Structure formats: C-alpha cells, structure tokens
C-alpha cells in the first residue's frame, strides 16, 4: 500500500515518546533523518511494519501520556513508524475516551458520575470543580466547545471507574516526562480541587480494597486478598502459590481440562459459557499459534471484583494464565486491563516480571495491553480488535474466537474471575470443587456490593446463597430496588430478595447475575435519574457500528428525558410503547451484547419496578 503521510513534523518530545516505545527509526522511510545507509536503495516498511499494527494503541497512549493529547505531528510520526494510513489512525484515536485529539490540559481529573457515584456525592464534586476550575471538557451539539481544556488543569465527567466500593471516585491523569495516573476513592469536593489545582492527587486507592470478609477461612478466591503481600513472589509462594501450576504440569493438559469439565466451571464475565469446553476447542485446533486473552477490561458499571483480584492477588492471575496457556497450547497470553486501573497494571506487570525472573512461566509469555477508555472493549471480539490496533468494533459471530480469534487465530478468552477459579479446581480436583454451589452453578461467586449499603465491597459466597443474606452481610437495611448484573443487567424490587443466587434461579426469575453487580438503591436514591444515566451510558459507549444500537440508544435516552421533562409525545404510555419497540429491535437486531442488553435495565425499571406508573397518572 502506498500511504500518503501527514506532512506535519513531530516535536522532539513526541518523537521521544514514540521512540521510547518502538526504538529509534531505522531510516527516513519510517520517519528518521534522511541520509542513513538504508535510505539509499531499499524501501522499508511494508509487511514488516504493518505487522506492528498492534502497537498503534500503545503508541497513541505514549503520546497521550507524554503530551496530554495527540497532535498531527505526533500521530503522523506514529503512522510512519507503523505504516498505518493516517485516516485509520485517526479513526482509532477518536474511538477511545481517554485519548484526546485536540489540545488538552496536561492534568485532567475524570470525575465518575455513574450510577454508584452519583448517588454518593459526585454532583457536589462536580459543582465545586465547576466553581473553581470552570466547566467540564465537553462538546456542545451545535456551537463551539464549551471548554477546550487547554489551560493547566481541566476536568471531565467519567463513566463508572470500577471504584463503587469507594464512591465517589475520580481518575487523575497527568501528562509529562513522568506521567501519573492515580485512581482515587472517597473523593470529596475539596480533595478533588486539591488534587487538580495542587497537582497532588495523593496515593492510588484502588488497591486498598474494602474487604469485609478479610481473613475468613471459608474464602477461596479472595483467600489471599488483604492478607498476602500482593507485590511479593515469596509471600505468594509461601501461601501455596504455584502449587497449582506444578500440579497441572505434572498431570498434563488433558487432565486439567477434565477437571474444569468435572468442576462445571462457567465463565464469570456474564455469558456463562462452559470454560472446559472452550479450552478443549482451542486445544484441538490445528492452526497455530493459539492465543490466550485474559479479559480484565472490567467496565460494567457497578463491577469492581477484577480490580480487587488484580491489585490484591496479581500472582494468582499470572499463575492461572500460565495454566490456561499450558492446557490450550498457547505460548503468548495477553492481559487486557482497562485504562482506568493503572495500579492493577503495575501490580500485574510486577508479578509477571518476578515470575519471569524466577523462571516460573517456562516458555509462556504474558503481555499487558491497556485499554484506552471504551466499555465495548470488554466484548471479546472488540477486545481483539483493540489489541490488533483497531477501533473496538465487535465482530460478527460466527466465526467464534475458539476458531478465529485474535490475529485470526484460535483464541481462548477468559475473564479474570473465571481464571481465578482455575487454581482451586486444579488444587482440589474438579469433583471436589463442584461440591460447592448448586447443580447448575458450581463453586463460589464474587459479588460487588455497592450503593445503599453500610459495608460495600467484594463478597465471595457459594452459589445458592440467598440475595437476602448477601444484602444483610453488606448492611443493606432498606433496599427499595437492587440492580443485578450492572447496567446490562436488570433491576429487581426490594421485595424480591428471596432469590437464591444461582445462574438458573436468576434466569427463572427473569434476571441475571451478569458480572456480579449487586447495587442497592435506598429510599433517598432517585431511580429515574439512575435509569437515565444508564441510558446515557449506553449511548456513550455504543461503538456506533450497527443501526439498532447506534440510533436506538439515542432514542431510548431521549424518550426517558421527555418523560422526565413532562414533554411526552402522546403520553407516558405511548413513550413506554416506543421504548419497548426500540428496545426489542436493539435486543433482536444488534450485532453484540451491548446493543442486545441496552434496554434490559430500562425494561426492568418499566415492567418490574413499575417506575413510570405514578408518572403516568
């Protein structure tokens, strides 16, 4: 391909940031000085450079972290280095919320105003920031930008940061030679202003998990969390770490997969697919290489369990990924962690480095890829696209990832919590593992309790525990409604808590456990506002590929706003019918799970909570 590159030159700092990632350019063909020996008679680039396309997002992130935004010169240089057409790079850069493509302040505070934080003080923070630092960076639909955010500091609204146990939360980002990313919990209006204006966010609080069950001997997945130093390999090994890997290697790959099948382990990401079957399918594929992907792009509003596992027990994820690679014939595993979890990425990288130095991983290699602010990249095929350096647009299935996945190869994708279950299964054996839980849902499950509870946090309970009991553990005294499964899940009423928490009971009750979200709404919470926020979330996070979701999420949000403003088109009943029409089409005709579930919570608010009945009267 004959690429027409951007003429603008990169600044020295931009060049530095990219060269630090990619190494110096080989010749003027890929953006270096003219006159090197290689310039004379050869053309470089082409296929070899294009094989580096997977470095596009990391390269754009390098610019973002160094400069604070992606300029024409900077992006142009990236395009030369990687042989990417500028228009495509632009398409990628403008897809991700944490990449700026217009000048932006070096220091930005991303204030979470999603469903958990907005009921716990986010608005007070936003008002104070507005008063002291000006309007949020945002686009206005018809006029000019409200605020360009070109000054020293700026702030913007953010979707769920996965810190609902520490609500309200914010993410501080500072670009420069030593960039900083700090995830903050229990933010107050004054601490937010202080962090931003004094450039002093303090320590990241995403690793100081609230662990209400800490030390409980019944814990399996959370056993080491809060009790074993997450930065020390020795501490992990003393606590029994790497015994599972040794056992897996001694018994062989088939044995491991047989244990998963005996354990009847199903994925914990939401889709609940049998993990053993997935592993078997990839293992059996003749095409090579096989890839392993650990999906740590936990972005479902209300979900923060993976954050706890990654920051508190990172060695376990490394060990479990190594077992998965061994059992499925993968030499490389990618861990895709959401951008909003900087500390998790640091801790896992530390664990990988320590294990590699101790030669514990054999010839298995783990690479961390960081998201760049896109909920949709939690969808497995969108995640592949993102790792490949593209826009996070889901692919249509079939073909399924076990056949055609990352880089077109057979790929096993597992969520963090799913992988965490592999260790006890290998240790105990599948049958013993399956003794916990119910027939259809074996083992324990992590639940993310937040909202109107006195003890928020991640809870580990056996499948089959009653919702009522889980709520009592977290101190939910007056639940008016509970959001199960996150924004893509459903609300249940406060009087529906005699629900055994299993996949099959949830399904029978017309709800879902999804990613394990249990967000409690109390008497003071504005449910209408929450539903509108969920609708706005889906509108923001739709990739835009397919019509039902791209436009449907907009129409859904507009209808909810019309109801709220008392400006219905033909009355509330007509609006609810319209919502249902749009919702059914989104569910039936969208490409991926995002569009297919974008009506789910809204529908449950209408039909289960009957939230709009009093409005209608």
């Amino acid at each position, binding site marked *: 391909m004959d690429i027409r590159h951007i003429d603008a030159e990169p600044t020295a700092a931009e060049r530095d940031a990219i060269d630090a990632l990619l190494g110096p350019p080989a010749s003027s063909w890929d953006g270096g000085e003219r006159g090197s020996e290689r310039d004379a008679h050869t053309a470089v680039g082409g296929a070899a450079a294009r094989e580096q396309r997977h470095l596009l997002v990391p390269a754009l992130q390098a610019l973002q972290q160094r400069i604070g935004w992606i300029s024409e010169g900077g992006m142009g240089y990236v395009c030369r280095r990687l042989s990417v057409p500028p228009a495509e790079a632009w398409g990628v850069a403008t897809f991700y919320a944490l990449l700026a493509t217009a000048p932006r302040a070096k220091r930005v505070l991303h204030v979470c105003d999603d469903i958990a934080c907005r009921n716990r003080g986010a608005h007070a923070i936003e008002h104070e920031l507005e008063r002291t630092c000006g309007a949020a960076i945002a686009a*206005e639909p018809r006029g000019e930008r409200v605020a360009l955010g070109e000054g020293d500091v700026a702030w913007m609204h953010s979707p769920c940061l996965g810190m609902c146990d520490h609500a309200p939360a914010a993410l501080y980002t500072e670009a420069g030679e030593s960039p900083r990313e700090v995830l903050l919990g229990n933010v107050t209006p004054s601490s937010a202003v202080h962090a931003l204006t004094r450039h002093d966010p303090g320590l990241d609080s995403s690793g100081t998990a609230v662990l209400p069950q800490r030390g409980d001997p019944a814990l399996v997945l959370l056993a080491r969390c809060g009790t074993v130093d997450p930065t020390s390999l020795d501490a992990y090994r003393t606590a029994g770490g790497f015994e599972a890997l040794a056992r897996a290697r001694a018994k062989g790959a088939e044995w491991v997969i047989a244990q998963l099948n005996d354990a009847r382990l199903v994925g914990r990401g939401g889709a609940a697919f049998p993990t053993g079957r997935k592993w078997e399918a990839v293992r059996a594929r003749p095409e090579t290489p096989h890839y392993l992907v650990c999906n740590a792009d936990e972005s479902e509003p209300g979900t923060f369990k993976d954050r706890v596992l990654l920051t508190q027990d990172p060695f376990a994820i490394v060990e479990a990924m190594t077992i998965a690679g061994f059992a499925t014939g993968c030499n490389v595993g990618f861990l895709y962690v959401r951008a909003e979890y900087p500390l998790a990425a640091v801790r896992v990288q530390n664990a990988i480095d320590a294990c590699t130095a101790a030669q514990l991983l054999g010839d298995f290699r783990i690479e961390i890829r960081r998201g760049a602010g896109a909920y949709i990249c939690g969808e497995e095929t969108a995640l592949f696209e993102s790792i490949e350096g593209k826009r996070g647009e889901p692919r249509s299935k079939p073909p399924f990832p076990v056949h055609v996945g990352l880089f077109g190869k057979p790929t096993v994708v597992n969520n963090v919590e799913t992988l965490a279950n592999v260790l006890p299964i290998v240790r105990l054996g599948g049958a013993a593992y399956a003794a916990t839980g119910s027939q259809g849902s074996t083992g324990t499950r992590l639940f993310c309790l937040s909202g109107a509870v006195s003890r928020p946090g991640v809870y580990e309970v056996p499948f089959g525990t009653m919702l009522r009991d889980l709520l009592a553990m977290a101190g939910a005294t007056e639940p008016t409604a509970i959001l199960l499964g996150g924004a893509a899940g459903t609300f249940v009423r406060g009087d529906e808590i005699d629900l055994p928490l299993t996949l099959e009971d949830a399904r029978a009750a017309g709800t879902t456990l999804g990613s394990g979200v249990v967000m409690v709404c109390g008497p003071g919470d504005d449910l209408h506002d929450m539903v509108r926020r969920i609708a706005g979330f889906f509108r923001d996070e739709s990739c835009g590929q397919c019509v039902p979701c791209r436009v449907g999420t907009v129409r859904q949000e507009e209808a909810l706003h019309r109801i709220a403003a008392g400006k219905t088109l033909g009355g509330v009943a007509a609006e609810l019918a319209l919502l249902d029409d749009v919702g059914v089409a989104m569910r039936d*005709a969208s490409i991926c799970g995002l569009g297919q579930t974008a009506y789910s919570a809204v529908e449950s608010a209408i039909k289960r909570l009957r939230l709009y009945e009093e409005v209608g009267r």
Partner: protein
Amino acid sequence: MTATPLVQLARPSRPARPPVALTIDGQSCTVEEGTTILQAARSLGKEIPTLCYLETLEPVNACRLCVVEIEGARVLAPACSRAVEGGMKVLTASARVRHSRRLVLELLASSVDLSTAPGLAELIDEYGAQPARFGESAPPSNDGVRDASIPGHHVVAAPGTAATVAQPVKVDNELYVRDYAKCILCYKCVEACGPDHQNTFAIAVAGRGFDARISTEFAVPLPGSACVYCGNCIAVCPTGALMATSEHELRAAGAWKPEVQQTTDTICPYCGVGCTLSLHVQDNVIVKATSPLENDITLGNLCVKGRFGWQFVQPKDAAAGEGRD
C-alpha cells in the same frame, strides 16, 4: 439491486463445495457450503432488503436491515453475511423480522436525510415505518462540530426533539461533495477506498456511537488528504451522501432530471486498462460517469480520469447547467 452474485464473475472458478440443505420460509433449498442466507434466499427468488451490503464488497453487516429469524437462535441474524448451516430453518418475513426492519428504517430515517437514497421511500412505506414518532428533528449542527465530538461524551437533544446527523455539506474540492447529513454509516465508502478496491485509505470511520462519522485524518479537507479522486466511494454510496459536484449542483438548481437522462456505455479513452464507462447524458450534456457494477474488469470502479475527466468533450460549466443555449 440485481440478484446475481456479481463478485464471482470476476474470480477464477473454484472447486465446488459440499451441498447444504436448509429451509427458508418453509421452502427447502440446497446450496453450496459457504453460501450466505441472502444468496440462498435469492436463489429461491426471495428478496431480502439490504443497505450496507454490496456484491462487490466484503459484508460489514452493520445496517441490520437484512436480519432474518433462525429457528432456535436467541437473536436475529444478518442474511447478508451469515453462512447457511445444514438444517437451518430461516424465516425472512416473520413478525419479529419485520419489527426490527421497521425500527431500523425508523431509526435511520429519523436521524439521516434519506431524500436522495434510491428505494428507501418505498421500503419505509412497505414496512409502515414512522420516523416522525421520535419527535421533530433537532436543529442541525454547525460545520465541524460533529467532527470535533468527544467519545464518551454527549449532550441530549432538547426534550421533544430527535438528534440527527444534520450538518452542512462539505464542499472542499471541484470534483465531488460529501453531504454527511445523508450518511447512514454503511462503511461502503471506507471499504471501497481501502482494502476492497482502491487501497488509498483516505477515509475511515472516526468517533464512536451516534457521533461516529466518516472522516479524513483530523477531518482535513479532501485536498489535504490521501484522496486520489477516483470517486469509487461515490459509486458505492447508497444514499447520495457522496455525490459528483456536477450532480450536486444540478440538484441544487432543481435541474437534475433522471427521467430524461440516457446512459451510454463506452470504453474509457485514456489508458490501456480499457474500463467500461457509462456516460449519463441529460439534455446532450454528460452529467455523470460511472462504470457498471457487474463489469468484471472494473467492478464499478474507475480512476479520476475516467470518473471525472470528460469535461473536455463539452463546453466548460456545461454540467452545471450553463453553457447550453
């Protein structure tokens, strides 16, 4: 749209693949493995509406107009790209299917100007779609505002109004205009400019969600982009969002008269490739040049000379309606 799988004309023949038996609306049929539901349905003489599908391009299955119901499946499937499987029971016009198609049409027609999209008004009628049910259109955005949108951030249209992609036409070169108020984001132009035909990669999808749009890098005007003005994007655009300036100006003057136009096929005189050229002539003036999609040399593609280089045969500005007596 024609029923022939055009792309196969241009490819060398390949060994036959095993047969697959399925039923479509209760009618049995047997087709080769790898056939799409759309092709299978067409072999039975059934039409399934499509928008983002084109025989000469890789299916992106984005518009979802072609969805069909497969018995036992949780969600509907895009007929344009889903391959048949043995024993599949497909319904192409069930209530569920018609519902989603109607909604796709309503959602599109309420957010995009479809006034120059051939065949869409008829489909909207056929499915009883009512795009006005979402409220009156919100005011259009100013030039460049959609190009500057921030992913993950939006402002809700004033209650009672429906957000649209309305915006001024981009006129930044002499050969063709980009009227993204008419863009349904079917990805066809991106594919034609990129890997499927032209390999120029001047345009890509940028932004996200409802703010997604077709764009050059940093939304620079076309002359500053990689565009080589082959116009192959115009040839595949299903809505008239991309339009030769000659046609755009005649339409603006109310002088575009397709009913009196004659199309004459000839061979491009410029180079040895010898592309087939269809000259669209109105009142003795060439107003547009295309190449037939089913032509196995061009697949509808041309280069800048064939597409736009015919002004020399007629007085300057003839296409714009001047220079005629």
